[in-house]
């Protein structure tokens, strides 16, 4: 992380609107953050744009792929950049978005994403990468205490996975922590067995609670939040889903994202409508497949079409907002999976693993 720098008055003017929303402290934390974005796909472009605009210290965009003739990406002038590296080709259009951010666009294969390289960053984001890459980069990030996000688009659908394991967030205080006096009373009453048990429980769960601001009504507390790893989060045993759980969890969008990730990994190439249909047939006797196919209106083309720009904008927007939230430690983060489906215009937050 770079030396702590306080925001200048020029920056204050540029970021005026967002400071009004998330406050100066949050903006100062963004100002001192460095982010690696890997994968300049259409989703990567959305994320890159959002992060350039929010006012980071530095953004590195890396990719190992080349621009293809049929690529659609608003940060890349495709006509001029065919066969160029996707990250490098997006430099100029990223640069003009915000001259205040240190921008680096580099060619990197994913095997170069070593722990040593990743350590320079406060947050690592993978856009449209395979399951095995997400798994290995997530593991390195957890080990080295780096925030991690992965996102992907499958036609009209898309997902984002968040892992901010062990990071602190400033969240609105529960009512009983809102006032100093009450906190003192808590301490007094801590001798009573039930309270004490609760406190012990909180501490053992890694939820160290520290009251930060104590103004009435908008008191905030620092809370350390635990997240499961990518591989643990994706554990899914369909047979354990009862009707009640299905009704409560509404898992269709997660099932679609999970199936796409899984299929892509298994087949080793971009999935086709036929692949998905075969997959559905294979699990035809599983009621969950019906949920997923209903959510897609029985049209598998929608997940194999090229990434829908609107879906990229929505998933990219939600993903970037979580990135900003985690870097600025501001507000309660969503835990820990977002899955969007444009067929029914619904985007759900899932707390994975789906079944505890």
């Amino acid at each position: 992380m770079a030396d702590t720098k306080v925001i200048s008055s020029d920056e204050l003017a540029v970021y005026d609107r967002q400071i009004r929303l998330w406050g100066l402290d949050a903006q100062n934390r963004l100002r001192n953050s460095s982010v690696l974005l890997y994968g300049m796909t259409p989703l990567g472009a959305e994320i890159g744009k959002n992060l350039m605009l929010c006012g980071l210290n530095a953004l590195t965009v890396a990719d190992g792929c080349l621009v293809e003739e049929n690529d659609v990406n608003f940060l890349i002038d495709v006509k001029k950049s065919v066969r160029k590296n996707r990250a490098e080709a997006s430099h100029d259009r990223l640069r003009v978005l915000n001259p205040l951010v240190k921008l680096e666009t580099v060619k990197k294969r994913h095997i170069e994403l070593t722990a040593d390289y990743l350590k320079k960053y406060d947050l690592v984001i993978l856009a449209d990468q395979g399951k095995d890459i997400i798994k290995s980069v997530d593991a390195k990030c957890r080990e080295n205490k780096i925030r991690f996000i992965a996102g992907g688009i499958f036609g009209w659908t898309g997902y984002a996975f968040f892992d901010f394991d062990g990071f602190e967030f400033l969240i609105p205080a529960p009512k009983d922590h809102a006032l100093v006096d009450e906190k003192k009373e808590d301490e007094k009453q801590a001798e009573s067995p039930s309270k004490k048990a609760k406190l012990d429980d909180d501490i053992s769960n890694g939820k160290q609670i520290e009251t930060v601001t104590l103004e009435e009504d908008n008191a905030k507390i620092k809370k350390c939040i635990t997240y499961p790893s990518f591989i643990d989060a994706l554990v899914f045993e369909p047979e354990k889903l009862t009707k009640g759980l299905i009704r409560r969890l509404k898992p269709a969008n997660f099932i679609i994202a999970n199936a796409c990730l899984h299929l892509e990994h298994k087949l080793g190439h971009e999935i086709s409508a036929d692949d998905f249909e075969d997959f559905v047939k294979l699990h035809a006797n599983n009621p969950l497949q019906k949920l997923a196919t209903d959510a897609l209106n029985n049209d598998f083309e929608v997940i194999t079409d090229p990434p829908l720009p609107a879906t990229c904008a929505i998933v990219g927007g939600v993903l970037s907002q979580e990135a900003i939230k985690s870097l600025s430690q501001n507000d309660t983060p969503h835990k820990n999976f977002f899955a969007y489906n444009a067929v029914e215009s619904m985007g759900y937050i899932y707390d994975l693993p789906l079944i505890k």
Partner: protein
Amino acid sequence: MMSTFLKVSHLYLMLLITKVITSSSIKTINVQFLAARAHVNRLCLSANVPLFESGSAGYMGNVFVIIKGKTECFECLGKPVQKTFPGCTIRNTPSELIHCVVWAKSVFNQLFGEEDPDDAVSPNFEREGENGHANKNAENGEEKKPVGPSLRTIASQANYDPKEVFNKLYEKDINYLLTMDDLWKDRRPPTPLSWGGNSAAGTQTITNKIWPVQTWEGIFTEAVENLGKSFKEAESKGNVLVWDKDDDVAMNFSNFDIKSMAGNIIPAIATTNAIVAGMIVVEAIRMIRGGVTNDLRAAYTNPTPIASRLVSSSAANPPNPNCFVCGGGNREVRIAVNLEAMKVSTFEEQVLKKGLSVVEPDIIDLGTSNVIISSDGDTDGTKTLYAVGVRNGTRLDCDDFKQDFSVKIQVQHDPSFDPIQFELREDDEPVKSKISENETGLVSESMEIDKDAAQIKNLKRTAGNPDENIEIPTKRSRIEV
């Protein structure tokens, strides 16, 4: 100017439609003012062209499609109700920042603007009961009135000497407040400040630091002196000063957060804007694929998931049959004004253009067929409504060729109203809409603050989704999608 605006509007619609059809990325319809949005709404209804209305505010965003006869239009929900604060809270027991902002704007008007006795800033005999509501001391025979001579009188007698004004506001008035023991039973009593003679101290201001009292005195002095000077110039021409959030001197009188509150800014951010843009395109594609009769949806995004949904949608609401805009031909609105006091020009500017959002109205008295207002501008606006023959119960035909919009107005006389006050009464339910003295540009009505927040609440209540990007661009360039 209006024709330019119309061209822009048409261009916008065409742009929108072209973009919808080519399904390329669409930006939010970020038309800023309610009147402008109402105008586009009417044009689209008239041309029978689908309109995607959208907005983003903070982490909230929404989009809904307006199709004539199928879904609700922009004006189906009626006019927003403005948020108000009880005067006694502002004067006696402010507990939130917004109370102080409202107070400061009132002080501004008392000193330099149009004086309004209802807007007095000094403490009064009105007391707050336990429940925080006003509780008049009728038994003691005390009448609700400010103490002593008005702030304006004191200030002009002292020739706008900052010391005198300061002592009146922060010492004398506070000491008076302290004598009301009832108020301080459950509250921390205020501490009076006396003038420390630091008028020259630290006018070099630093943003985002807590200032010591000396700095405040310096700022106060500078503001009162500069504004006092401007006021005397204005007064000699028979004018008063108008509070403006982009005037630094006026702003220092009351700064950052405050600018948002007093200037009604709700911030729009890149991520929410991107999500809303995506939602518009998804709903536009849905309409193009499914047609205007099938599965039209209103989509919204929230700061926190609601029933696990961060991005959500529901079937589009049907039109409000009582809507005076899309509800069909002969809708009638009832408007109460003081016929003997309101001038025809005020009726046109305030009631028709601001209240009903028309741009070039023609008004005909349906009883006598007299032309009261002509869009050609050849009618006399200086007479009162009464003088041109409008009576209690008179029905007027309001027609705006530019919007292809017409509505019948039934006028009701209310002698208690002032010359610029009016009330829209739709279906026996009065909708208060006291417009402040905008003709002189004055914001004497402190209660205007938060009107847009109220609009959002209003929409939330009815449609279950937020609306409105009330975004006012800064003077400096900024980065925004």
